[in-house]
């Protein structure tokens, strides 16, 4: 029983790590209606930016994460404006394919600048706490707390803030938004900054837990997608739910299956859920 409880706990922790970039992916999808494969590279950019200011200027976790948000957002915005935005009339697929190219380019720009070596944050590491036979990582708790705070902030922003509501409105109907004084191009830009920035923060949280290299984000791309799709692309709470479910599913699977098939379990989970609910758990349905 304890083993299962521990696995679920571990799953939630792992899920929190992919929830933030999944949130970014789903936010961009909600407004711009395309699947952004570059989200992996945005996460890597954020991680490297934060690492740079952390190791170079000794900034702590929170200011570093802020830098990551800005860096991820800025790179996302530049990529959107130079490479992706003009393709929107050609359809979501063209933009998605272009974002694969952007991912490849950004990953290699990082490689060009920083090389392939592993880089680690200059932050202390703590042993886990034990409670009722279960293991909790203070760092993971901190990560989870940051993740939950970000999710709540995003949720409240979209629900109550003027710009947040405008984002939802433009996601729903850009032409109508324009009539009421919303500039869809500007809203799209804000969304991209938010989404790519979140991916950047996700990259930092990941880097804190592990170590970073140019492929940090790309390696997790499939998990991020799985989470967002499972929850229903475009649904903010869905992304978080999907991430946690994938996390728990994978950790539980390790108990019964060879650990090498972990990713396959995530994949099987999304196939199963999608065959029952083709639009994901909290996805919008058209009919």
């Amino acid at each position: 029983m304890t083993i299962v409880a521990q696995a679920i706990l571990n799953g939630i922790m792992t899920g929190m790590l992919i929830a933030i970039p999944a949130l970014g992916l789903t936010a961009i999808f909600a407004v711009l209606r395309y699947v952004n494969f570059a989200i992996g590279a945005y996460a890597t950019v954020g991680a490297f930016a934060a690492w740079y200011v952390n190791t170079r200027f000794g900034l702590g976790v929170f200011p570093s994460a802020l830098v990551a948000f800005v860096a991820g957002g800025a790179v996302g915005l530049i990529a959107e404006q130079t490479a992706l935005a003009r393709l929107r009339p050609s359809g979501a697929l063209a933009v998605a394919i272009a974002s694969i190219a952007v991912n490849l380019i950004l990953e290699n720009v990082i490689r060009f600048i920083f090389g392939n070596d592993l880089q680690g944050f200059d932050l202390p590491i703590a042993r886990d706490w034990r409670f009722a036979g279960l293991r909790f990582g203070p760092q993971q708790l901190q990560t989870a707390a940051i993740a939950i705070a970000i999710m709540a902030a995003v949720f409240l922003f979209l629900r109550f803030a003027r710009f947040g509501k405008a984002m939802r409105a433009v996601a729903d109907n850009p032409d109508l938004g324009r009539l009421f004084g919303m500039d869809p191009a500007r809203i799209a830009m804000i969304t991209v900054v938010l989404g790519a920035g979140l991916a950047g923060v996700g990259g930092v949280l990941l880097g804190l837990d592990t170590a970073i290299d140019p492929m940090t984000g790309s390696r997790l791309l499939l998990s991020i997608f799985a989470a967002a799709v499972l929850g229903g692309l475009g649904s903010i709470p869905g992304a978080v739910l999907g991430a946690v479910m994938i996390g728990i599913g994978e950790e539980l699977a390790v108990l019964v299956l060879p650990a090498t098939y972990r990713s396959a379990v995530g994949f099987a989970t999304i196939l199963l859920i999608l065959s029952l609910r083709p639009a994901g758990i909290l996805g919008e349905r058209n009919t």
Partner: protein
Amino acid sequence: MLSYLIFTLTLGGIYALLALSLNLIWGGVGMVNLGLAGFFAVGAYASALVAIAGVPLPLAMLLACLIGAAAGILATFATIRLRGDYLAIVTLGFAEVVRMVALNERWLTRGSDGISGIPAPFRAELGVDGFNLFYLALVSVIVLAVFLTMRRLDLSPFGRVLKAIREDQELATFAGKSVTRFKMQTFALSAGIAGLAGALYGHFQTYISPDHFQPLITIYIFLAVTAGGVGRPVGALVGAYLVVFFLEATRFLGEIFTVLEPGQVAAIREILVGLALLCVLHLRPQGILPERIAPAPKPETSP
């Protein structure tokens, strides 16, 4: 240099088969298959394993086609209800699972060691150079045959239904078309072609391993089809050869950037691949040879 050219052309032919496969499923019914590398792998492993077990090569390649097609049918079953963007992600996952199985089921695939010593047709008889030339001819003939078949299909009533499904699948059912059947047949055929490409690749290289089938190859094929023109077989064909030549040409850039570290030159090469894809999408969104829709026949009696 000449044998390099022969090699590059042979590889271009194998890429062309993959591009034709992708074009059929993507340009045909509009399903985005990001798992191309997976079907490529299935064909390569199937043919290699049965050939090593003693099955004659033509039969082994045929089997690779069939097993690839079966994998395609399986994939369609699993994904038939999915929206386009979900399908893309699920097929991406499919390729990863194929790679994982190839990596971990050592009893079948020899795991990460890969399978070496795959029989190559007439290699002993022809010698290395003779074989390479023969194989180029073999691959080219197969590419030509598949291309002609794809073109015929593109212009046939079947192709017309595919295009209709691509444009609006719900409406196609109200035109009386069994969308599921058409999708399944198309996916099977497409996966079969990818499987054939895999078989040809395995027997050409005589060695395959899970590392061969990384997602990057799928990106190359998307680049090929996008550059050539989605929805037109000749576009896919031309695009594939262009991509291979482009990939090889970027090698010689290293000689220009001598001041850079080797890792940086490698990074620049991959950046160039990405930029090429972006340029094609921006400058020729329809590709070099855009899709054409055949006109109605003109009867002499028409006014």
